[in-house]
């Protein structure tokens, strides 16, 4: 399949949407969003509750397919191909575009098994020793190895909330994705754990493209390279109001509504 081809180095964009709309039944939740997300950068999606930013994020790895009434129109281009094209398998998409959820959701299995699950179901061909190696690398990649290296056999649920969320990131890394989607990954965490995740995001940026939905404006301001601001229109459909480098969005917004939102006058 085409999307399994290597990324084109001349293309700076990891994902590009073209007039993408998402419907839940008859209700249009997202209206004709078109923007490009640059590779190996952190892009933050911000906006008030219900503006469709999570829906946009979930449409990047076809998680909306799991909702029976959801339907996507327009195009989401990844490696030059529309992810919603007829010959694209959602399972394949999700391997290349991983996801971290709002609430840490480790599997009720050992830490080791949490990491090993992804590679295994995706047809892992390596040996036990190579798997040990992959588990260690993934945990190191998520800055969790030193904290858990002596208790890999313990349940993933025995970790603290922040550690669980880093375990989920490590789990996503283990299937070698190119893009990592994060849906409010810090909303259930305390400030110190939040800071650790943000530091981790900066580390991961060297290798992965990160798209993060956040309610926390400070987080978007300090931890992202680009910011996309979403808002509901009159029909309660989410739309993209402004998109640009984070510095510009926060210091010199072009749109009046963006300025009002980031200065805390509504939302």
């Amino acid at each position, binding site marked *: 399949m085409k999307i399994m081809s290597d990324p084109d180095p001349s293309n700076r964009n990891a994902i590009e949407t073209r007039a993408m709309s998402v419907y839940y039944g008859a209700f249009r939740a997202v209206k004709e969003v078109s923007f490009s997300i640059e590779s190996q950068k952190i892009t933050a999606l911000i906006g008030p509750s219900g503006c469709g930013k999570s829906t946009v994020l979930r449409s990047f*790895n076809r*998680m909306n397919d*799991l909702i*029976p009434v959801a339907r996507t129109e327009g195009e989401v281009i990844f490696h030059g191909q529309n992810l919603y094209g007829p010959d694209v398998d959602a*399972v*394949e998409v*999700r*391997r290349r575009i*991983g*996801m971290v*959820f709002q*609430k840490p*959701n*480790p*599997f*009720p*299995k050992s830490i080791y098994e949490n990491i090993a*699950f*992804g590679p295994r*179901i*995706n047809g892992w061909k390596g040996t036990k020793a190579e798997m040990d190696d992959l588990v260690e690398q993934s945990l190191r990649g998520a800055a969790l190895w030193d904290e858990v290296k002596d208790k890999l056999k313990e*349940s993933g649920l025995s970790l603290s909330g922040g550690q669980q969320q880093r375990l*989920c990131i490590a*789990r*996503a890394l283990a*299937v070698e994705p190119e893009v990592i989607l994060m849906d409010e990954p810090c909303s259930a965490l305390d400030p110190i754990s939040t800071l650790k995740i943000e530091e981790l995001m900066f580390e991961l940026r060297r290798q992965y493209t990160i798209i993060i939905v956040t309610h926390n404006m400070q987080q978007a301001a300090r931890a992202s390279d680009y910011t996309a601001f979403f808002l509901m229109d009159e029909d309660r459909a989410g739309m993209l109001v402004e998109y640009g480098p984070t510095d510009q969005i926060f210091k010199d917004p072009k749109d009046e509504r963006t300025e009002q939102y980031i200065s805390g006058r509504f939302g």
Partner: protein
Amino acid sequence: MRAEPIQPFTRRLPYGEDFKRNIARRRFIGHIWRYMFFSSLIIGMIALVTLLGTIVNRAFGTIAVQERVNPATLSEQPLEELSQEELLAIAQANLSGNVRRRLDREEPLEQRSAAELLQVIEEFVLQREVVKSWTLSETLFNYSHIEAEAAEQFPNARLEFKSWVSWDFVVRPMSRTPALAGIRTALLGSTWMILITMLIAFPIGVGAAIYLEEYARDNLVNRIIQTNINNLAGVPSIIYGMLGLAIFVRNLEYLTSGRFMGEGMGAANGRTLISAAMTMALLILPLIIINAQEAIRAVPNSLRQASYGLGATKWQTIWNHVLPVALPGILTGTILGMSRAVGETAPLIVIGAATYIVTDPSGPFSSFTALPIQIYNWTSRPQDQFRDIAGAGIVVLLILLLSLNAAAILLRNRFQRSL
């Protein structure tokens, strides 16, 4: 958006003394409910204790044993101490020709063990029989009355304390003499039946639950199916018995009688273990499906999403994450179904479980009897002692039920711990 201030002290809410009285009344109502709930519990406990008491009262007690022939006339030593050869000699010398021929047909006397020969001598030579039995409560509280009654009615009998529940009772086959009757045939029948029932009902039930919860779309057809499964759980068991009789016993007789395996194989008709087990499986399927569905529905969606997010397919998600987490709940439903199947009587009566059978079931295609049938049969016999062994049979049934449940609960707890 503007919030209007609320005017306080409008006297629509109680204050001061008023409020204290109000609290006291609310507390009082709470107390009344509490005592009502407590008395429900007490009533339940009384019912349970009475039930167990009645059973135990019947299953233990005093018996008056009478022998036509005095054992001292057969041998100078007590019969229990004789060897197999000596017992064989006594049996051969004292049994009438008819009886000997009949016993030899079952198993030649020469090949029987000392214990078996002793039983034969007791039954046919001494003609030992229990002429009367008294319950446990009479034994404990009114023994002098028993002695007086026995001395008056059966001067030759001797009184013995008898536990009708005993190892002998468990391992002996059915007999027309209550004192010699055992429950082995029924126990084996019930065990076979429950094993086959579970083998059929568990995979089908869990499979249907997985399909309904994970694959089926929310459309009219599936909603009708769902409603009907819920309704089937409440259908009286005798109706399942009729269904089993019509389909498994009659229509599928060629299969359920085991005749398809060849001439002379299996039973004479379709009233076999496999028919009963399939009927029971139908009976408990709705129970298993509904409980398994509940368990699968209780698996948090975040777990499914996590799995899909890593590129798992639907089946990989179900097999690796949904089923392991749902398994304890699924097993709970299975335990309920199993207990129900062990205790059900009505469908077995309709299907035609044998009420008097001495041969052990040898496989799914043999005719059989089951514990509840045996107990039901004993309670309807005229002789009083059959009531005593019915009590003992109930004790065995309860023990079987409790041990099956305990095994299933242990299994469930192991799965729960491993999460």
